């Protein structure tokens, strides 16, 4: 793959030599629990980064707090491990002032959706040039096992012995509601799909939100297992491909149809006919279809769970608009002169 595949990264300097995954491994010992889904994501990201063909020193990973947020330490790029929930805000300042960087945010369901929810939605609506990888394991790991904003209602945890009372967030629905221009979902253990989604995200101009279903084998083991188990996954999970009919099931026997009242429904293809199965349109200007698809899944049983790119539309990024505004003003008024500025228009002389 060549870097020409990523016009959104055109301002980031290109590597002179071919890179390998090894180039992106730092000298730090990885300290996640054995069996953690983060290992698989790290390995995939390290293998994927050479595909971008960017100078390593022009890639920055910014994280908040939580297990996932240790991620930057293990990549031999620039890395900033910040404070809880604030990574999108910090990355916004970095990406806005440095168009020559590829900036990635690593966050989790607690970091992004609880303490940092405000920064997440505003980064999405501004379309800052950030790629946000949200590791969703539906539990608080680093604080040892409390329910998170994506935990299913009624979950028994240390802080909810009688079951949690909270309704959960659907991160994809939330992002779409926050005017996101790129929203995708993938799975930690599906290396191929994860790589495809990361590639699509990297090529997007502006904020990309990638929800990654990730397993915490200590505090919430097998949370996504039905979507990984070869016996069940094909019946539960639909893979969204732009321009393709939305079909799934072991025999591709199920599909998504739009009902007369406008809502989407999973139907048997044989019963309704292939012509009635809708095709996925990730580039649709209106987020309605993407949102409706995001609502199909059952958060408890994981039935009808779409993965893939829900939405990928073109809108100028915040940082580009800011640069253009500065360039326009400078072009129209000329570069600023400090002495002239200090004098202003209303001076008097004392001799």
């Amino acid at each position, binding site marked *: 793959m060549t870097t020409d595949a990523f016009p959104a990264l055109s301002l980031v*300097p290109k590597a002179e030599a071919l890179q390998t995954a090894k180039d992106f491994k*730092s000298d*730090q010992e990885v300290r996640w629990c054995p069996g953690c889904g983060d290992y698989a994501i790290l390995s995939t990201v390290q293998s994927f980064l050479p595909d971008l063909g960017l*100078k*390593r*020193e*022009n*890639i*920055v990973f*910014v*994280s908040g707090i939580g297990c996932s947020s240790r991620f*930057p*330490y293990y*990549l*031999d*790029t*620039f*890395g*900033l*491990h*910040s*404070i809880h929930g*604030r990574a999108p*805000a*910090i*990355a*916004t*300042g*970095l*990406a*806005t*002032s*440095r168009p*020559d*960087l590829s900036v990635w945010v690593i966050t989790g369901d607690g970091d992004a959706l609880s303490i940092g929810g*405000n*920064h997440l939605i*505003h980064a999405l609506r501004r379309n800052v040039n950030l790629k946000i990888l949200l590791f969703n394991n539906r539990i608080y790991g680093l604080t040892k096992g409390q329910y998170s904003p994506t935990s299913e209602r009624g979950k028994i945890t240390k802080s909810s012995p009688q079951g949690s009372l909270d309704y959960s967030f659907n991160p994809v629905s939330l992002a779409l509601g926050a005017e996101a221009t790129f929203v995708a979902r993938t799975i930690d253990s599906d290396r191929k799909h994860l790589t495809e989604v990361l590639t699509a995200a990297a090529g997007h101009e502006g904020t990309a939100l990638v929800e990654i279903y990730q397993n915490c084998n200590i505090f919430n083991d097998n949370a996504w297992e039905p979507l990984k188990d070869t016996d069940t996954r094909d019946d539960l999970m639909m893979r969204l491909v732009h321009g393709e009919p939305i079909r799934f099931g072991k025999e591709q026997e199920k599909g998504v149809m739009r009902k007369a009242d406008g809502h989407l429904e999973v139907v048997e293809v044989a019963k309704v006919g292939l012509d009635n199965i809708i095709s996925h349109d990730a580039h649709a200007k209106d987020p309605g279809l993407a949102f409706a698809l995001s609502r199909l899944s059952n958060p408890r049983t994981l039935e009808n769970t779409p993965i893939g790119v829900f939405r990928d539309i073109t809108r100028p990024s915040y940082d580009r608009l*800011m640069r253009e*505004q*500065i360039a326009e*003003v*400078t072009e129209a*008024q*000329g*570069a*600023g002169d*400090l*002495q002239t*500025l*200090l*004098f*202003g228009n*209303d*001076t*008097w*002389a*004392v*001799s």
Partner: protein
Amino acid sequence: MSKQIVQLNRVVIRFAGDSGDGMQLTGDRFTSETAGMGNDLSTLPDFPAEIRAPAGTLPGVSAFQLHFADHDIMTPGDSPNVLVAMNPAALKANLHDMPRGADIIVNTDEFTKRNLVKVGYETNPIEDGSLDQFKVHPIALTSMTVEALKEFEISKKEAERAKNMFALGLLCWLYHRPTEGTTEFLKAKFGKNPEIMKANLRAFEAGWSYGETTEEFSIQYEINPAPMKSGTYRNMSGNLALSYGLIAASKLSGLTLFLGSYPITPASDILHELSRHKRFGVMTFQAEDEIAGVGAAIGASYGGALGVTTTSGPGVALKSEAIGLAVSLELPLLVVDVQRGGPSTGLPTKTEQSDLLQAMFGRNGEAPVPIVAPQSPSDCFFAAIEAARIAITYRTPVFLLSDGYLANGSEPWCVPDVSLLAKIDPNFATELNHEAADGTMEFWPYLRDPETLARPWAIPGTAGLEHRIGGIEKADGAGTISYDADNHDKMVRLRQAKVDAISRTIPELVIDDPDGDARVLIMGWGSTYGPIGAACRLVRAEGKSVAQIHLRHVNPFPSNLETILKSYDRVILPEMNLGQLSMLLRAKFLVDIIGYNQVRGMPFKSDELATVINDVLESM
């Protein structure tokens, strides 16, 4: 009729009216004309937090005080010689500040029964003799304005609204102010609405002519220009000076100025101002909240920009954790706190110095942050550059503690020659700096400069210097995660030592003690410089001795501070808080401090501080 002309040395005027009466504009215009006359001046706007409180009520009163003189002055003046009261509320709210014999110009049109009742006047004070100790000038400002504008095609309401220009015209006549500036100003301001523009010009001229012809005023006053050092001058307010100082710091360091900010009174004007200067490459980011504002600034600093966040006390509270991160990351960051009355929402439009301890200690852990405090509105320019110098040189967040009085107050400013301002070297790291055990070179992000103890600032895009840092404790030198007890103890002390080391580059304090006989020292920090200095003059004018020092650097202290404090019999420290700097000085130097503390939302008056000094002198 020919009028008597009287020379005055100084005058204090207060314009007061309803929030919608345009008193700030009137004050600004009068200030401009006065600055152009070459008088020294100092201003004090005083307005309510409500945008438009109910008309005619006490909470809705907005005022602007201006002190101008033929000599150099240090404060906006203790008590006005003249009050312009546009309605009964303005009279009632300001009367207690008026000395016996002062002139009071009242707009009689507004002294209706209804308006009087609204503020609790049972009888009309203009008529009931309660103002006998003042020189009251009852003038029908509104109706005379409407009369003067009757030929214009504007509504009665629009005509009434021009009454502030009538008042301004009258005051300009009374004090011999030039009119060209206001004429030009009105032409520019109402350029898009010629009828309104002409009406305002006419109102302004009518006010002037009224002064010339009325028998109400038999004397016209003149105040000669003040002798000032030669140079080009302009009028300068604190928030504007601070904004320009930030742009200057960006130029002097060659770093992009990145402001991450969330609107808050009284700091928002800095965001407004900087957003107008994109031609300087300034990036302004109006964030979703205070935390995002400082977060984005930290991100920009990490990328090699001059990251700045501007706020007031409540915003600082929200930013605390992020400022701690910047302490740990050891990145340059400016936190501008334009202090206001607290706690909580407090008094948003009033001034106070009560965030000092928040700036010093308001973070978890041992998290030292240098503090710089400007001493006058125009000094905000130089204080901003100094704060940036410290932040960039020492890789540290720095607090710039302005306040509401400095932010909105103004004074003449001798515009500096920018070619004489010292450059600031960001000194980015570009090379590997440490030899590993196997002889290969590597990059250690926390290998400190032995002189400044500052760490290398290696920004993304620098080949070979890729590194990972964060808020977790780092190993001394290598900068990798370390939970080692001895290392943590060392790192905590190193961060403190780095901030302490800044005092080596801070100028020593200079004592102002004209006769050298003083046994009493009065000191302050920040915006109290003017009132304290003016109080010293009053005391010295009585033949007594008092010495003055003023802190611009509140953390760390200048190196000779302890010696100075211990060489006086008494040390007086006025603060607009309950004794925050006093506490720091007592703790650090074991010296006794006589605090004088007030939190009334207004700056000290010089005569009250003179009384404080005299009381201490007499007690010895």
